[in-house]
Protein backbone atom coordinates (compact mmCIF):
# COMPACT_ATOMS: atom_id res chain seq x y z
CA UNK A 1 0.00 0.00 0.00
CA UNK A 2 1.27 3.48 -0.90
CA UNK A 3 1.49 6.50 1.29
CA UNK A 4 -1.83 7.43 2.93
CA UNK A 5 -0.94 10.61 4.82
CA UNK A 6 0.99 13.57 3.41
CA UNK A 7 3.13 15.80 5.63
CA UNK A 8 4.29 19.08 4.10
CA UNK A 9 6.90 20.11 6.63
CA UNK A 10 8.69 18.50 9.56
CA UNK A 11 7.35 21.11 11.97
CA UNK A 12 3.68 20.60 11.00
CA UNK A 13 1.22 19.24 13.58
CA UNK A 14 -1.32 18.22 10.93
CA UNK A 15 -1.01 15.90 7.90
CA UNK A 16 -3.29 15.51 4.87
CA UNK A 17 -5.21 12.34 3.93
CA UNK A 18 -4.27 11.01 0.46
CA UNK A 19 -7.38 8.79 0.38
CA UNK A 20 -10.64 8.49 2.32
CA UNK A 21 -9.48 7.16 5.69
CA UNK A 22 -11.70 5.43 8.27
CA UNK A 23 -11.91 5.71 12.04
CA UNK A 24 -9.78 2.96 13.57
CA UNK A 25 -7.36 2.86 10.61
CA UNK A 26 -3.72 2.88 11.68
CA UNK A 27 -1.71 5.09 9.32
CA UNK A 28 1.96 5.94 9.18
CA UNK A 29 3.48 9.37 8.93
CA UNK A 30 7.19 10.08 8.50
CA UNK A 31 8.46 13.10 10.41
CA UNK A 32 12.15 13.96 9.95
CA UNK A 33 13.07 10.40 8.91
CA UNK A 34 11.21 8.80 11.86
CA UNK A 35 8.00 6.92 11.14
CA UNK A 36 5.09 7.19 13.58
CA UNK A 37 1.90 5.14 13.68
CA UNK A 38 -1.34 7.03 14.29
CA UNK A 39 -4.72 5.45 15.04
CA UNK A 40 -7.50 7.57 13.56
CA UNK A 41 -10.29 8.61 15.92
CA UNK A 42 -12.60 9.71 13.11
CA UNK A 43 -13.12 9.29 9.38
CA UNK A 44 -10.78 11.64 7.47
CA UNK A 45 -11.92 12.41 3.88
CA UNK A 46 -9.37 12.77 1.06
CA UNK A 47 -7.62 16.14 1.24
CA UNK A 48 -8.64 16.78 4.86
CA UNK A 49 -6.30 17.17 7.81
CA UNK A 50 -5.56 14.89 10.77
CA UNK A 51 -3.74 15.87 13.99
CA UNK A 52 -0.43 14.01 14.17
CA UNK A 53 0.05 14.99 17.79
CA UNK A 54 -2.11 16.28 20.65
CA UNK A 55 -2.92 19.96 20.14
CA UNK A 56 -4.11 22.04 23.10
CA UNK A 57 -6.94 24.55 22.85
CA UNK A 58 -5.48 27.96 21.91
CA UNK A 59 -2.32 26.60 20.33
CA UNK A 60 -1.30 27.09 16.74
CA UNK A 61 -2.08 24.76 13.85
CA UNK A 62 1.02 24.39 11.68
CA UNK A 63 0.95 23.33 8.01
CA UNK A 64 3.62 24.13 5.36
CA UNK A 65 5.70 25.06 8.44
CA UNK A 66 3.46 28.13 8.88
CA UNK A 67 0.53 29.04 11.14
CA UNK A 68 -2.79 28.34 9.40
CA UNK A 69 -5.00 29.00 12.44
CA UNK A 70 -5.56 28.26 16.12
CA UNK A 71 -7.26 25.33 17.92
CA UNK A 72 -10.66 26.26 19.38
CA UNK A 73 -10.70 23.08 21.51
CA UNK A 74 -8.29 20.38 22.62
CA UNK A 75 -7.55 18.19 19.60
CA UNK A 76 -6.27 14.66 20.26
CA UNK A 77 -3.82 12.93 17.93
CA UNK A 78 -5.73 11.09 15.19
CA UNK A 79 -8.64 13.59 15.16
CA UNK A 80 -10.07 15.35 12.12
CA UNK A 81 -8.82 18.99 12.05
CA UNK A 82 -11.18 21.34 10.25
CA UNK A 83 -13.52 24.33 10.67
CA UNK A 84 -15.22 22.74 13.72
CA UNK A 85 -12.07 22.85 15.84
CA UNK A 86 -9.76 25.52 14.33
CA UNK A 87 -10.19 29.11 13.26
CA UNK A 88 -8.32 31.68 11.21
CA UNK A 89 -6.12 34.24 12.96
CA UNK A 90 -6.76 36.66 10.09
CA UNK A 91 -10.52 36.77 10.09
Amino acid sequence: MGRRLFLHNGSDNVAVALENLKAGDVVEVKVREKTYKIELREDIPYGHKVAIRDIERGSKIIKYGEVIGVATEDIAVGSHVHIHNIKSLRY
Partner: protein
Amino acid sequence: MEFYGYAREDGTVGVRNHVALISVDALANRTVEGISKLVKNTVPITHPYGRLQFGEDLDLTFRTLIGTGSNPNVAAALIVGLEPSWTSIVAEGVSRSKKPVESVTIIGNGDHKALEKGARIAQRMVSEASEIRREPFHLSNIVVSIKCGASDTTSGMASNPAVGRAVDRIIDEGGTVIFGETSELAGAEHILARRAVNEEVREAFLKTVKDYIDFAVSKGVDILGSQPTAENIAGGLSTIEEKALGNIQKTGTKPIQGVLKPAERPKGRGLWFMDTSASAQEAVTLFAAAGAVVHLFPTGQGNVVGHPIEPVIKITANEITAERMPENIDVDVSDILRGKMSYDEAGELILDALLKTASGKLPSAEILGHNEFALTRFWKSM
Protein backbone atom coordinates in the same frame (compact mmCIF):
# COMPACT_ATOMS: atom_id res chain seq x y z
CA MET B 1 21.98 25.25 -17.85
CA GLU B 2 21.27 26.35 -21.42
CA PHE B 3 18.45 26.81 -23.90
CA TYR B 4 18.36 27.78 -27.56
CA GLY B 5 16.72 31.19 -27.99
CA TYR B 6 16.62 34.25 -30.21
CA ALA B 7 18.87 37.25 -29.51
CA ARG B 8 17.02 40.58 -29.71
CA GLU B 9 18.51 44.01 -30.41
CA ASP B 10 17.66 45.30 -26.92
CA GLY B 11 19.68 42.52 -25.26
CA THR B 12 16.71 40.34 -24.30
CA VAL B 13 16.31 36.72 -25.38
CA GLY B 14 13.17 35.25 -26.92
CA VAL B 15 12.07 31.63 -27.13
CA ARG B 16 9.73 32.17 -30.10
CA ASN B 17 10.18 34.20 -33.28
CA HIS B 18 6.70 35.58 -33.92
CA VAL B 19 5.62 38.32 -36.30
CA ALA B 20 2.86 39.91 -34.21
CA LEU B 21 -0.12 41.70 -35.76
CA ILE B 22 -1.52 43.90 -32.98
CA SER B 23 -4.94 45.56 -32.97
CA VAL B 24 -4.88 48.97 -31.31
CA ASP B 25 -8.68 48.85 -31.07
CA ALA B 26 -11.48 46.38 -31.74
CA LEU B 27 -12.26 48.04 -35.09
CA ALA B 28 -8.89 46.86 -36.41
CA ASN B 29 -9.57 43.20 -35.55
CA ARG B 30 -11.02 42.34 -38.99
CA THR B 31 -7.95 43.77 -40.74
CA VAL B 32 -5.58 41.94 -38.39
CA GLU B 33 -7.46 38.66 -38.88
CA GLY B 34 -7.46 39.22 -42.65
CA ILE B 35 -3.69 39.80 -42.75
CA SER B 36 -3.10 36.68 -40.65
CA LYS B 37 -5.11 34.64 -43.18
CA LEU B 38 -3.12 36.00 -46.13
CA VAL B 39 0.35 35.77 -44.57
CA LYS B 40 1.47 32.54 -42.91
CA ASN B 41 3.50 32.55 -39.69
CA THR B 42 1.92 35.71 -38.33
CA VAL B 43 0.21 35.89 -34.94
CA PRO B 44 -2.98 37.98 -34.74
CA ILE B 45 -3.48 39.71 -31.37
CA THR B 46 -7.01 41.05 -31.16
CA HIS B 47 -9.21 42.31 -28.31
CA PRO B 48 -12.59 44.02 -27.78
CA TYR B 49 -11.37 47.42 -26.46
CA GLY B 50 -9.24 50.48 -27.27
CA ARG B 51 -11.78 53.20 -28.08
CA LEU B 52 -12.69 55.99 -25.63
CA GLN B 53 -10.68 54.60 -22.76
CA PHE B 54 -9.01 57.24 -20.61
CA GLY B 55 -6.64 57.88 -17.72
CA GLU B 56 -4.94 54.96 -15.95
CA ASP B 57 -7.23 52.52 -17.72
CA LEU B 58 -5.99 53.71 -21.13
CA ASP B 59 -2.38 53.77 -19.86
CA LEU B 60 -2.70 50.10 -18.93
CA THR B 61 -4.10 49.19 -22.36
CA PHE B 62 -1.21 51.03 -24.07
CA ARG B 63 1.34 49.45 -21.69
CA THR B 64 -0.11 46.00 -22.38
CA LEU B 65 -0.18 46.39 -26.19
CA ILE B 66 3.29 47.99 -26.28
CA GLY B 67 4.67 45.36 -23.88
CA THR B 68 3.22 42.54 -25.97
CA GLY B 69 4.80 43.90 -29.14
CA SER B 70 8.09 44.45 -27.30
CA ASN B 71 8.16 40.92 -25.79
CA PRO B 72 11.38 39.06 -26.74
CA ASN B 73 9.25 36.30 -28.32
CA VAL B 74 8.28 38.82 -31.02
CA ALA B 75 10.70 39.29 -33.94
CA ALA B 76 8.75 42.12 -35.57
CA ALA B 77 5.39 43.82 -34.97
CA LEU B 78 2.75 45.34 -37.24
CA ILE B 79 0.42 47.70 -35.40
CA VAL B 80 -3.06 48.16 -36.89
CA GLY B 81 -5.51 50.79 -35.65
CA LEU B 82 -8.52 52.78 -36.80
CA GLU B 83 -6.80 56.16 -36.63
CA PRO B 84 -3.18 57.42 -36.60
CA SER B 85 -2.95 59.07 -33.17
CA TRP B 86 -3.27 56.07 -30.85
CA THR B 87 -1.78 53.73 -33.46
CA SER B 88 1.43 55.76 -33.49
CA ILE B 89 1.60 55.77 -29.67
CA VAL B 90 1.63 51.94 -29.68
CA ALA B 91 4.02 51.73 -32.66
CA GLU B 92 6.49 54.20 -31.12
CA GLY B 93 6.29 52.34 -27.81
CA VAL B 94 7.18 49.04 -29.46
CA SER B 95 9.98 50.68 -31.50
CA ARG B 96 11.81 51.42 -28.21
CA SER B 97 12.56 47.67 -28.08
CA LYS B 98 14.60 48.28 -31.29
CA LYS B 99 12.77 45.57 -33.22
CA PRO B 100 11.21 46.20 -36.65
CA VAL B 101 7.80 47.81 -36.18
CA GLU B 102 5.42 49.35 -38.71
CA SER B 103 1.84 50.51 -38.60
CA VAL B 104 -1.27 50.72 -40.77
CA THR B 105 -4.39 52.80 -40.13
CA ILE B 106 -7.83 52.17 -41.56
CA ILE B 107 -9.24 55.73 -41.75
CA GLY B 108 -8.13 57.13 -45.13
CA ASN B 109 -7.38 53.64 -46.51
CA GLY B 110 -10.58 51.71 -46.01
CA ASP B 111 -10.56 48.06 -44.97
CA HIS B 112 -9.34 46.73 -48.33
CA LYS B 113 -6.32 49.01 -48.80
CA ALA B 114 -5.36 48.70 -45.12
CA LEU B 115 -5.46 44.92 -45.53
CA GLU B 116 -3.28 45.05 -48.65
CA LYS B 117 -0.73 47.43 -47.10
CA GLY B 118 -0.63 45.39 -43.91
CA ALA B 119 -0.23 42.09 -45.77
CA ARG B 120 2.71 43.42 -47.81
CA ILE B 121 4.46 44.65 -44.65
CA ALA B 122 3.73 41.40 -42.79
CA GLN B 123 5.10 39.28 -45.66
CA ARG B 124 8.39 41.18 -45.60
CA MET B 125 8.57 40.88 -41.80
CA VAL B 126 7.97 37.10 -41.92
CA SER B 127 10.63 36.70 -44.62
CA GLU B 128 13.19 38.64 -42.57
CA ALA B 129 12.29 36.98 -39.26
CA SER B 130 12.66 33.53 -40.83
CA GLU B 131 16.39 34.17 -41.25
CA ILE B 132 17.00 34.60 -37.51
CA ARG B 133 18.60 31.46 -35.99
CA ARG B 134 18.41 30.11 -32.47
CA GLU B 135 21.60 30.39 -30.42
CA PRO B 136 22.59 28.90 -27.06
CA PHE B 137 21.92 31.08 -24.01
CA HIS B 138 22.42 30.53 -20.30
CA LEU B 139 19.20 30.17 -18.25
CA SER B 140 20.01 33.50 -16.57
CA ASN B 141 18.64 35.20 -19.72
CA ILE B 142 15.14 33.84 -19.21
CA VAL B 143 12.09 35.61 -17.80
CA VAL B 144 9.46 33.13 -16.55
CA SER B 145 5.98 33.85 -15.20
CA ILE B 146 4.01 31.62 -12.81
CA LYS B 147 0.34 31.38 -11.95
CA CYS B 148 -1.89 28.45 -11.05
CA GLY B 149 -5.51 27.85 -12.02
CA ALA B 150 -8.41 25.46 -11.53
CA SER B 151 -6.56 24.56 -8.33
CA ASP B 152 -7.56 21.73 -6.02
CA THR B 153 -6.12 19.79 -3.08
CA THR B 154 -3.34 18.39 -5.27
CA SER B 155 -2.16 21.92 -6.19
CA GLY B 156 -1.20 22.97 -2.67
CA MET B 157 0.16 19.50 -1.84
CA ALA B 158 2.24 18.80 -4.91
CA SER B 159 2.17 20.78 -8.18
CA ASN B 160 2.62 24.22 -6.55
CA PRO B 161 5.53 23.14 -4.28
CA ALA B 162 7.11 21.38 -7.30
CA VAL B 163 6.92 24.60 -9.34
CA GLY B 164 8.37 26.40 -6.30
CA ARG B 165 11.45 24.11 -6.50
CA ALA B 166 11.85 24.93 -10.22
CA VAL B 167 11.46 28.66 -9.47
CA ASP B 168 14.23 28.48 -6.85
CA ARG B 169 16.51 26.75 -9.37
CA ILE B 170 15.79 29.35 -12.10
CA ILE B 171 16.63 32.16 -9.68
CA ASP B 172 19.78 30.37 -8.42
CA GLU B 173 20.89 30.30 -12.09
CA GLY B 174 20.37 34.06 -12.35
CA GLY B 175 16.99 34.03 -14.10
CA THR B 176 13.91 36.17 -13.52
CA VAL B 177 10.47 35.01 -12.33
CA ILE B 178 7.24 37.02 -12.04
CA PHE B 179 4.22 36.01 -9.93
CA GLY B 180 0.95 37.86 -9.31
CA GLU B 181 -2.64 37.02 -8.26
CA THR B 182 -3.07 39.76 -5.65
CA SER B 183 -6.48 38.50 -4.49
CA GLU B 184 -5.22 34.95 -3.91
CA LEU B 185 -2.40 36.11 -1.65
CA ALA B 186 -4.78 37.68 0.88
CA GLY B 187 -4.39 35.67 4.08
CA ALA B 188 -0.76 34.77 3.50
CA GLU B 189 0.58 38.21 2.57
CA HIS B 190 2.22 38.55 6.01
CA ILE B 191 4.21 35.38 5.25
CA LEU B 192 5.29 36.50 1.77
CA ALA B 193 6.10 39.98 3.09
CA ARG B 194 8.91 38.46 5.19
CA ARG B 195 10.66 37.66 1.88
CA ALA B 196 10.69 41.26 0.66
CA VAL B 197 14.25 42.31 -0.14
CA ASN B 198 13.91 45.51 1.92
CA GLU B 199 11.45 47.54 4.01
CA GLU B 200 10.30 49.64 1.06
CA VAL B 201 9.37 46.56 -0.97
CA ARG B 202 7.73 44.97 2.07
CA GLU B 203 5.49 48.01 2.57
CA ALA B 204 4.68 48.33 -1.14
CA PHE B 205 3.74 44.65 -1.26
CA LEU B 206 1.49 44.78 1.82
CA LYS B 207 -0.13 47.99 0.56
CA THR B 208 -0.93 46.39 -2.81
CA VAL B 209 -2.72 43.46 -1.15
CA LYS B 210 -4.49 45.72 1.38
CA ASP B 211 -5.64 48.11 -1.37
CA TYR B 212 -7.12 45.15 -3.21
CA ILE B 213 -8.97 43.88 -0.11
CA ASP B 214 -10.25 47.43 0.58
CA PHE B 215 -11.35 47.83 -3.05
CA ALA B 216 -13.37 44.62 -2.85
CA VAL B 217 -14.93 45.75 0.44
CA SER B 218 -15.86 49.10 -1.16
CA LYS B 219 -17.75 47.08 -3.79
CA GLY B 220 -19.55 45.08 -1.10
CA VAL B 221 -17.38 41.96 -1.31
CA ASP B 222 -15.66 40.68 1.81
CA ILE B 223 -12.64 38.80 0.39
CA LEU B 224 -11.25 37.61 3.72
CA GLY B 225 -14.66 36.64 5.11
CA SER B 226 -15.73 34.75 2.00
CA GLN B 227 -12.62 32.55 1.99
CA PRO B 228 -12.19 29.66 1.95
CA THR B 229 -15.25 28.99 -0.22
CA ALA B 230 -17.79 26.23 0.52
CA GLU B 231 -16.10 24.17 -2.22
CA ASN B 232 -12.67 24.71 -0.61
CA ILE B 233 -14.05 23.69 2.80
CA ALA B 234 -15.57 20.52 1.32
CA GLY B 235 -12.11 19.81 -0.14
CA GLY B 236 -10.50 20.10 3.30
CA LEU B 237 -9.25 23.70 3.49
CA SER B 238 -10.16 25.26 6.84
CA THR B 239 -8.82 28.85 6.86
CA ILE B 240 -7.85 31.62 4.44
CA GLU B 241 -4.24 31.30 5.63
CA GLU B 242 -4.21 27.63 4.63
CA LYS B 243 -5.70 28.35 1.19
CA ALA B 244 -3.28 31.20 0.44
CA LEU B 245 -0.31 29.13 1.68
CA GLY B 246 -1.16 26.44 -0.87
CA ASN B 247 -1.06 29.06 -3.60
CA ILE B 248 2.23 30.68 -2.59
CA GLN B 249 4.13 27.36 -2.54
CA LYS B 250 4.80 27.94 -6.25
CA THR B 251 6.74 31.14 -5.50
CA GLY B 252 9.55 29.08 -3.93
CA THR B 253 11.69 30.57 -1.19
CA LYS B 254 13.74 33.39 -2.75
CA PRO B 255 13.57 37.10 -1.81
CA ILE B 256 10.99 39.32 -3.52
CA GLN B 257 12.88 42.04 -5.40
CA GLY B 258 10.03 44.46 -5.99
CA VAL B 259 6.39 45.22 -6.72
CA LEU B 260 5.43 45.80 -10.36
CA LYS B 261 2.41 47.60 -11.75
CA PRO B 262 0.31 45.47 -14.14
CA ALA B 263 2.30 44.88 -17.37
CA GLU B 264 5.42 46.58 -15.92
CA ARG B 265 8.82 45.07 -16.73
CA PRO B 266 10.99 43.74 -13.87
CA LYS B 267 13.86 46.11 -13.12
CA GLY B 268 16.38 43.33 -12.57
CA ARG B 269 16.78 39.58 -12.05
CA GLY B 270 15.26 37.41 -9.33
CA LEU B 271 11.67 37.04 -8.10
CA TRP B 272 9.16 39.87 -8.72
CA PHE B 273 5.55 40.40 -7.66
CA MET B 274 3.10 41.98 -10.12
CA ASP B 275 -0.31 43.33 -9.10
CA THR B 276 -2.64 41.17 -11.25
CA SER B 277 -6.03 39.56 -11.29
CA ALA B 278 -6.17 35.83 -10.57
CA SER B 279 -7.95 35.32 -13.91
CA ALA B 280 -5.64 33.07 -15.95
CA GLN B 281 -5.97 34.86 -19.30
CA GLU B 282 -5.68 38.35 -17.79
CA ALA B 283 -2.68 37.50 -15.61
CA VAL B 284 -0.75 35.69 -18.38
CA THR B 285 -1.46 38.61 -20.75
CA LEU B 286 0.01 41.06 -18.20
CA PHE B 287 3.07 38.82 -17.56
CA ALA B 288 3.75 38.52 -21.30
CA ALA B 289 3.42 42.31 -21.65
CA ALA B 290 6.11 42.59 -18.94
CA GLY B 291 8.48 40.49 -21.03
CA ALA B 292 7.91 36.97 -19.66
CA VAL B 293 8.80 34.41 -22.35
CA VAL B 294 7.57 31.13 -20.81
CA HIS B 295 4.78 30.53 -18.29
CA LEU B 296 4.67 27.67 -15.74
CA PHE B 297 1.05 26.84 -14.94
CA PRO B 298 0.26 24.31 -12.19
CA THR B 299 -3.35 23.10 -12.30
CA GLY B 300 -5.51 20.69 -10.35
CA GLN B 301 -8.76 20.29 -12.25
CA GLY B 302 -7.24 21.25 -15.63
CA ASN B 303 -7.23 24.91 -16.69
CA VAL B 304 -6.46 25.01 -20.45
CA VAL B 305 -5.22 28.63 -20.87
CA GLY B 306 -2.66 29.62 -23.50
CA HIS B 307 -1.36 32.92 -24.92
CA PRO B 308 -0.61 34.13 -28.48
CA ILE B 309 3.10 34.74 -27.90
CA GLU B 310 4.06 33.31 -24.47
CA PRO B 311 4.09 29.48 -24.36
CA VAL B 312 2.27 28.08 -21.30
CA ILE B 313 3.42 24.80 -19.71
CA LYS B 314 0.75 22.85 -17.76
CA ILE B 315 1.76 20.88 -14.69
CA THR B 316 -0.62 18.71 -12.67
CA ALA B 317 -0.38 16.39 -9.68
CA ASN B 318 -3.98 15.26 -10.09
CA GLU B 319 -3.82 11.76 -11.62
CA ILE B 320 -7.44 11.96 -12.81
CA THR B 321 -6.77 15.22 -14.67
CA ALA B 322 -3.58 13.77 -16.18
CA GLU B 323 -5.52 10.69 -17.31
CA ARG B 324 -8.69 12.38 -18.58
CA MET B 325 -7.15 15.52 -20.17
CA PRO B 326 -3.79 14.27 -21.49
CA GLU B 327 -3.87 16.70 -24.43
CA ASN B 328 -3.85 19.63 -21.99
CA ILE B 329 -1.11 18.46 -19.60
CA ASP B 330 2.64 18.73 -20.24
CA VAL B 331 4.16 17.58 -16.94
CA ASP B 332 2.55 14.95 -14.68
CA VAL B 333 3.92 15.10 -11.13
CA SER B 334 1.23 12.93 -9.51
CA ASP B 335 3.96 10.50 -8.38
CA ILE B 336 4.68 12.99 -5.58
CA LEU B 337 1.41 11.94 -3.93
CA ARG B 338 2.26 8.25 -4.36
CA GLY B 339 5.50 8.80 -2.47
CA LYS B 340 7.46 7.88 -5.62
CA MET B 341 8.76 11.34 -6.52
CA SER B 342 10.32 14.06 -4.35
CA TYR B 343 9.59 17.77 -4.76
CA ASP B 344 13.17 18.20 -6.00
CA GLU B 345 12.74 15.48 -8.64
CA ALA B 346 9.46 17.07 -9.76
CA GLY B 347 11.18 20.46 -9.90
CA GLU B 348 13.84 18.95 -12.20
CA LEU B 349 11.13 17.56 -14.51
CA ILE B 350 9.54 21.01 -14.72
CA LEU B 351 12.90 22.67 -15.35
CA ASP B 352 13.59 20.15 -18.12
CA ALA B 353 10.19 20.94 -19.72
CA LEU B 354 11.01 24.66 -19.41
CA LEU B 355 14.39 24.31 -21.17
CA LYS B 356 12.85 22.19 -23.95
CA THR B 357 9.98 24.64 -24.45
CA ALA B 358 12.38 27.57 -24.41
CA SER B 359 14.40 25.79 -27.12
CA GLY B 360 11.39 25.34 -29.39
CA LYS B 361 9.37 22.32 -28.21
CA LEU B 362 5.66 23.13 -28.41
CA PRO B 363 3.66 22.63 -25.21
CA SER B 364 0.07 21.43 -25.40
CA ALA B 365 -1.57 24.87 -25.23
CA GLU B 366 0.45 26.04 -28.26
CA ILE B 367 -0.32 22.90 -30.30
CA LEU B 368 -4.03 23.20 -29.47
CA GLY B 369 -3.99 26.86 -30.54
CA HIS B 370 -4.89 28.36 -27.17
CA ASN B 371 -4.17 32.05 -27.77
CA GLU B 372 -6.11 33.82 -25.04
CA PHE B 373 -5.31 37.53 -24.90
CA ALA B 374 -7.32 39.49 -22.34
CA LEU B 375 -6.77 43.13 -21.47
CA THR B 376 -7.22 44.08 -17.81
CA ARG B 377 -9.61 47.05 -17.44
CA PHE B 378 -9.62 49.35 -14.40
CA TRP B 379 -12.87 51.13 -15.28
CA LYS B 380 -15.48 51.72 -17.97
CA SER B 381 -14.84 53.71 -21.15
CA MET B 382 -16.01 57.29 -21.69
